[in-house]
């Protein structure tokens, strides 16, 4: 039915005019994406149209909002925030998930190799977008198929491929982590990067208590 309505409108209204009445979403986020129960989560949005912030499960004070803004909501469990922007001719919707105290998450990304340092390295800053300041490390696992040196602040540990370390237990998850995988004697950067598909990652087990 909407298609037929649209086609009918297209026959009498130039296409350019239609877009004047279209909703659009310019931005949406819910941070931190990993939180502890009872944490405040900042939801920020920018849209064109009438905006409604929703959530599943429902949290306090969701509903119609200004077209641009931000607001803190308290989450007790995994929550999907939604943004709906509507205008005369269209309705747009998008979603952002916040996960409360998952067992673990994997962090990392595409790494660079230095022939001078003879190592593949990556820095992983975890800030307020990624994790709650209340989250603590319960374990760390080397997710790579080769040994790495993992460091955060003054703590560092050499972890074999697939191995775990307790060196970071009870440390805040938030902060800057560095990963380094040394080249083997005679190994080239290209060969080393191929073994890890150009990525370095690590898994963090989470805890929210003292």
């Amino acid at each position, binding site marked *: 039915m909407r298609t037929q309505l649209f086609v009918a409108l297209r026959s009498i209204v130039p296409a350019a005019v239609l877009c004047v009445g279209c909703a659009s979403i310019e931005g949406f986020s819910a941070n931190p994406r990993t939180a502890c129960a009872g944490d405040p989560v900042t939801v920020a949005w920018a849209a064109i149209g009438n905006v409604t912030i929703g959530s599943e499960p429902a949290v306090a004070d969701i509903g119609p909002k200004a077209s641009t803004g931000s607001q803190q909501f308290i989450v007790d469990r995994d929550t999907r925030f939604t943004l709906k922007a509507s205008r005369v001719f269209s309705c747009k919707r*998008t979603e952002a998930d916040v*996960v409360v105290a998952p067992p673990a998450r994997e962090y990392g990304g595409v790494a660079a190799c230095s022939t001078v340092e003879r190592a593949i390295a990556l820095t992983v800053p975890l800030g307020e977008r990624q994790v709650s300041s209340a989250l603590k490390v319960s374990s760390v696992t080397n997710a790579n198929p080769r040994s790495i040196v993992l460091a955060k602040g003054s703590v560092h540990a050499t972890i074999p491929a697939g191995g775990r370390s307790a060196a970071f237990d009870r440390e805040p998850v938030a902060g800057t982590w560095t990963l380094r995988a040394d080249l083997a004697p005679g190994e080239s950067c290209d060969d080393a990067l191929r073994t890890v598909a150009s990525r370095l990652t690590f898994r963090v087990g989470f805890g929210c208590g003292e």
Partner: protein
Amino acid sequence: MAALDQIRTIVVVIMENRSFDHVLGYLSLPQYGGRRDVDGLVDLDTDPRFANEYDQQIYRPFPMADGRFLHDLPHGRREVAIQLAVSGGTPTMSGFVRAYVEASHSIVEQPPPLGYLTPDSVFMSDFLARNYLVCDHWFAPLPTDTHPNRVMAFTGTATVDETKSRIIPHRNLVFDWLTGRGVRWRAYHCGFSFFPLFGEFGHILGGNFHSVRQLASDIASDDDDEVPQVIFIEPEYGDSPVHFGFAPNDNHPPDPIGPGEHFLRDIYTALSSSPRWAQTMLVVIHDEHGGFFDHVAPLPVKIPVPAGALYQEPFATTGLRVPALIASPFVRGGTCYRGNLDHTSLLQLFAEKFAGDRRAYSDDVNRRLDQGIESLSSVLSQEARRDVPPAPATAVSVTQVLQSTTPLINENRKALLLAGQKLLAHDRARAIRQFPELVHLQS
């Protein structure tokens, strides 16, 4: 007699916008048989090739039930570059979540580009994969979206690099090439066709275009000297400006894949129940990856910008892998072909079969051949099999697609609307006779 000589009809079906890993990657997973001959999904929790990064967090492929998506997935030239996430000159295939978040502003625990389907959802593709041949290194020709890749399939030349609302400039259109060599061809369409976008309305209204509803009866009634040597079968495009008796079954997100699977079953059933199946080759591919993850990097295939092209930056690689399935008595059951193919492999096949030389289509196609793109004849087995596996009887529910949906106003929809209007202007009476839904458009 060589297999290619024994094949009398080549049937080509080009669906829309799904990647190999998304549709057929499950074939390599242990719970679905763990096929080691297929380069699909393996060790998803640990293999670094499957790690996608967005904002420091790693996301990995997950099983996805078929259904309607909240958004279409990004797959234009710029977005594909993000997905490839080239580092040090090497595509890392790690940017699919990033491209999706940037396009949709949606950041969820299971980002749709990383979802993979399982046999419950792709029952017909699964049937074809288990009973016929998978090509696990069939790439979209270009790392961009629908129009350029379909233009490559039907001409071999990349005259455009993005989907826009316009009649597409082209040369070496496959219909002209086939007609010029006296090859009988036919195109079957559900609703409105993609081919009017080439502006060659004489072909469209010249009697070679039939409704897909005529497929089974044509097969039954064609005399031997009428049987088409090449058949193109088009799905009902979700981007069609008007739907008239067909729900979208082209597999293009946000629509689900279930209707397309039923469409493939209908085609296979019609073809394989005919005695002529013994001389038939059915090719089912997707035009491009549609924004879905695939872990295999595109092939380095450099092509200069052709004269008259509507872009300046040349392409240096293929697009991503797409699902490709070949059903024929001349392929072995449950096998996989690993050679490098793309849509122009079809044009090489036509050249080989109908001109006796795989280099006889065009210089543009030969340029790809010289860089390792093979003819589709490579997949054929010299021994014909006599069994004809029956299509699955169990259907999957597609009720979700029947729900009212908001049409996406994108460039492809605008382009098809434009093509429909131009076709009406060209010959309104014949256009409406060929495509009855066009009566709903203003000329």
